[in-house]
């Protein structure tokens, strides 16, 4: 249930940003989560709803994008998507890897009026 902690932090940032730019209503929040963060979107949405109840973001739509895990091979330089938890280069089999994406916990944009 890390969803609730993350949802609370998200709500705090959304409400603070809305206040700063004088929004009277938040209509949509666009976020991306890396697959490694293991967020369950339904649980996250539920936790977010609970947190923003009775605020200017209570009707905001949540758009959650799940970003697949991609690594770069430090040996041969190729990029590949991790499938079935196989953290090895699919060309040269090296396990010396750097992460390109898959651990995101980002707010892309906040929409409002």
């Amino acid at each position, binding site marked *: 249930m*890390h969803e609730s*902690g993350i949802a609370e932090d998200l709500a705090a940032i959304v409400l603070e940003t809305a206040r700063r730019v004088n929004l009277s209503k938040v209509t949509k929040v666009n976020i991306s989560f890396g697959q490694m*963060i*293991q967020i369950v979107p339904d649980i996250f949405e539920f936790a977010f709803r609970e947190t923003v109840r009775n605020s200017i973001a209570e009707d905001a739509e949540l758009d959650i994008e799940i970003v697949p895990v991609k690594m770069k091979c430090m040996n041969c330089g190729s990029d590949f998507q991790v499938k079935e938890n196989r953290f090895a280069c699919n060309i040269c089999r090296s396990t010396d890897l750097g992460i390109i994406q898959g651990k995101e916990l*980002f*707010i892309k944009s906040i929409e409002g009026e």
Partner: protein
Amino acid sequence: MKNILDRNQNKANEVRNLLALKKVLMVNIISSPGAGKTTLLERTCEELGAKFRIGVIEGDITTDRDAQRLKKYNIPIVVINTEGGCHLDSNSISKVLDSFELDNLDVLFVENVGNLICPSQFDLGEAFKLAVVSTAEGDDKPGKYPMLFREAVAVLLNKIDLIPYTNFNFDSFSSDLKKINSQIPLFEVSCTRGDGLREWYDWISEKINISR
């Protein structure tokens, strides 16, 4: 793009800088409930208590039972009750660091709340994460919780003495783990019987010595 956990990350960076300055190695221990984190700490205090100055932060949902078990070692222990929360965060760590005399510590073990998912997402400012799993939980943990096994710097497989009574398949466990993190050190131990703990003591002693 703004990172949602910025607040946690900033605090974690503060904690990490402070501990580096004080030369204290903080180890974030993550496992399911009942894998043997507290027993591992009991054993480690017994073996290394004379050699290093050990402190413990106990993350517990509501009780201080784990802390009670460690009292006999006469080490500084602080309990953080998360009141239902499934993980510790960097803010709660930062708040309790004041309760320790950091100049008189070599290592600070953080026993996180028993859970394999949530604690692996929250940086506490630790030097590294240690994953503890026990054979009684089954051999599928790395495959089901890959994030923890990617994030951890070592894995301790506890309760190897129980393997004959379970359907734990070591080859399957080890091949799943290698797929996720091929170089990760694996300690196969029984914290109640003592098997395999020598390798753990030597490894953690080396880590503490490097940070001093």
